[in-house]
């Protein structure tokens, strides 16, 4: 296995939003020490207003830290050259309303100094990749639905084939199918060796994809570590099986109790609504496109 470098490293990163009076100042982030290794998927978790977006903007150099510093790909945050290797999906899709999807992506591709052929290839490839219907690609973004806009924003983040992808609430505004697609996409990015930093308050997102995470609360890290370690309840044992008759259940419980197990609970596992929904929509789509 290759040695892992840190893609992101922050030291005592602090942000206080200035206010006219002292009481208006906001302490958004307090002495954050973060290390994201290359090739991993890192989750930034926390309730609304806990400083996730602030952290991400600091990492991109969109805002200036009050104290501390951050290194991204070995360079100071905001370095122009490192930005070539970064993709950023903003919290909300801040795109030009008067351009269509193609023009938008063409514009961002120009900012990466791609030539005409490269631009055309990248634009088409990534619009397909994020699954934007071809019919809407020529329409102004102002007329898009939230999900469609989100897809364009995502394509914009991937356009330069970045090594580090920073996603702020990637699943917000997407339907559950879209969410699943995004999660699948993140998995593929990981396979391709990319580093992903994603923030979310939707725990389900994080749980499914992240390798490691931190939980922020009011700008401070409350908890951090590898997901597997954090969620595993080492003191509990769970058994799942099909075709278990009521008698067998009784027996199993009796055996467990007889051997000193405590707090025994039994029940039937439920599928997640998300999976149910996806199965439903997938079936519909299959029916609509019999030739595929």
């Amino acid at each position, binding site marked *: 296995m290759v040695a892992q470098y840190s893609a992101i490293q922050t030291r005592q990163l602090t942000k206080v939003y200035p206010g006219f009076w002292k009481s208006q100042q906001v302490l958004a982030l307090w002495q954050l020490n973060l290390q994201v290794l290359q090739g991993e998927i890192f989750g930034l978790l926390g309730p609304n207003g806990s400083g996730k977006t602030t952290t991400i903007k600091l990492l991109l150099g969109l805002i200036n830290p009050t104290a501390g510093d951050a290194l991204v790909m070995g360079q100071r945050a905001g370095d122009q050259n490192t930005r070539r290797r970064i993709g950023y999906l903003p919290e909300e899709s*801040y795109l030009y309303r008067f351009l269509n999807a193609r023009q938008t992506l063409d514009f961002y591709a120009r900012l990466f100094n791609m030539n005409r052929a490269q631009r055309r290839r990248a634009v088409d490839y990534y619009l397909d990749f994020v699954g934007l219907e071809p019919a809407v690609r020529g329409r102004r973004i102002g007329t898009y639905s939230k999900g469609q806009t989100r897809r364009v924003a995502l394509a914009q983040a991937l356009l330069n084939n970045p090594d580090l992808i920073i996603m702020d609430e990637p699943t917000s505004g997407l339907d559950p199918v879209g969410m699943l697609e995004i999660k699948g996409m993140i998995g593929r990015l990981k396979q391709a060796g990319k580093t992903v930093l994603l923030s979310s308050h939707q725990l389900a997102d994080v749980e499914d994809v992240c390798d490691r995470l931190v939980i922020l609360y009011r700008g401070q890290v409350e908890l951090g570590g590898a997901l597997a370690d954090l969620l595993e309840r080492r003191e509990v044992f769970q058994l799942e099986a099909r075709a278990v008759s009521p008698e067998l259940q009784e027996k199993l419980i009796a055996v467990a109790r007889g051997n000193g197990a405590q707090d025994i609970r039994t029940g039937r596992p439920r599928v997640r609504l998300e999976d149910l929904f996806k199965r439903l929509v997938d079936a519909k789509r299959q029916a609509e496109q019999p030739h595929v």
Partner: protein
Amino acid sequence: MPHASLSYVPVIADVLIGLLVLAFALLAFRDVARLRTGFSRAWAVGRITLAEAWNARIWAVPLLWFLICLILTFALVRSYGPGGEVRVDLTIFLRAQEILLLVYLGVLACLALPRERERRTLITTGSKPITRLELLLGKVMGLSAAALLMILVMMGATWGFMKVVDARIRHDAWVLYHLQKKNYDKMVRHLPPQAGLLYLARHGVLRAQNNITGRLRIAGYINYAVNPPIRALKGGSAETLYFEFPSLPATLRAPPLFVFHFGVRSFGKRRGPARIHVTLVQRSNPMNTEEKSLTLNAQGSAVWQPKKRFAFFSYVNPMTGRIYNPGPVVVKVASMTAGDYLFIANGRKPQDASCLAWNMDRTRTPGHTNFVAPKPDPIITGFKSNGKQEVVGPSYRHPGIPPEVASFEFRHLKRRQIPINKNGDFTVHLLVGVDKQMNEALPAKAQLLAYDVDNPQGRQRQVLRIDDKHITVVKLPASLLDGSSLVINLSSMIPGHWLKITPASVAIVRPPSPFILNLAKSELVVLCEVTLLIVIGVTAGTCLGWPVALLTTMVCYILGNIVAFVGKLSRQGGFGLLNYVQENRLKGVWYYQIGSLISAVMVKMLNMLVHLLPDFTRFDPLYFIVRSVNMPWTVAATDVFWTLACVLPTLALGYLLLRKQELA
């Protein structure tokens, strides 16, 4: 109050601007180095800006402009005569274009960055590898491109419209000429057809002339063949002689005495002594005057001591030790007695000037010169109307008195620049208006007297028929061009006919340039002006919200249009009208002191501000084209250079403001 102390202001302003550029050079060198690949990124931003402008229906602006111009031209253009019509049309079309572009693109420039910030699109763009400098340049480039596109469209429309007007004028002239010719041939009309009409029909009005114009002087009599030239003020005419004194020192005991001295020569019977009317005027406050009629003695001299003691003269207040200086003062002289010619000393030797200010008090102080002389070669103006001067013809009442002369002096002529035909002649165009107070039925006639000052004997005299506001073509032998300067004198020959003269009324003809090229140069000046305003607007938008940015840009533009005025204010001693404050009486009063302190600070601040801001009065797209004169390339190039010289510090400021700004 002397404002010489303000002379440090431009220096400080230049130093500040220099520091700004230096800071830019020090802080931006990395970003500037990145510009090698950065222009394509900047242009990407520019394209978006252009697309946004297009989306904001920028294409409607030229349409609107054309509509406005059509309405204005049809509402305003009455029969001015062909040249006047074209002048008014061009003024409307170009001025409207300039105003519309300045307003529209000024607003777009102020909105450029604030709107991106409000819509948060800067967050996405800012996460890409683009520098702040490229962002700034991109915005400017996009808006300038929009301006360029609009200007191209409007230029095409202006050209088309002017072509139509020109075709109509030429057709009308042609028809009229042939009508006159037919009537003359049938002897219905006793005057031959107007040659000016034929010239108009042939050449039209859309010209960009490269003709050479001279220096116009009007006088009762002028002779350049003597060195220095002799001039005389005509008695009983509307001619006014101006003696300009940069400043008139006095002492508290005595204001100066003015001593006048003229050589008097009379035509016809003398009815009494020669009289002059003199008026003393403060330059910065023309309402401040004193006048007096004086009688010249047998030697042609008169003495006058004005009554108003301190309104015109500078003096040192012995109580405060401060200098009071009302600035330049002008002495106007008119000759009141018809038939008298007052010959004027040219004043190149100060003691010989025809008007001297003697300070009686200082004559007794050793080490002081005891008189002040005006600037040499005092100006004479004729009767003025609508910015033109008129010279009167001979008079029935005073026969024998020669008519007034408008004299055009052409110095430093380069012979190889003047085309000479195979007969050895060069061409001169006369474009003169005629104002007939009497003898309305007679065609106007002018006498043209041309001579080379080194060889006055070889002078050429021609009597020409003048068509009001039509070009009269005159051929003169090339031998006149041999000397150091050529003089052409023009005077009216018919009693009661006034000739309306401008400095361009007599011109040595050179091949014209294409009109479209001249139009393009005018549009280039408009583009420069608009680009400068765009840069100011975008810079204001880097750190301000759009309403404040808009206000700032507007203030910059307005102050930039009164630079010369403010400069003059501080040079000539503040607001002229406020000079009347009697310092002695108010000197000890605390509120006067505070008031004067505040006013002094205000003048200084205004002066400083104005020196920091670009001078918008430099851009004059109209000056040449409405005079049918080709804009020299040097003028266009100077405007471009000046624009760049203003754009760079402004961009530097914008960059420094945007450099560390938070985009989110």
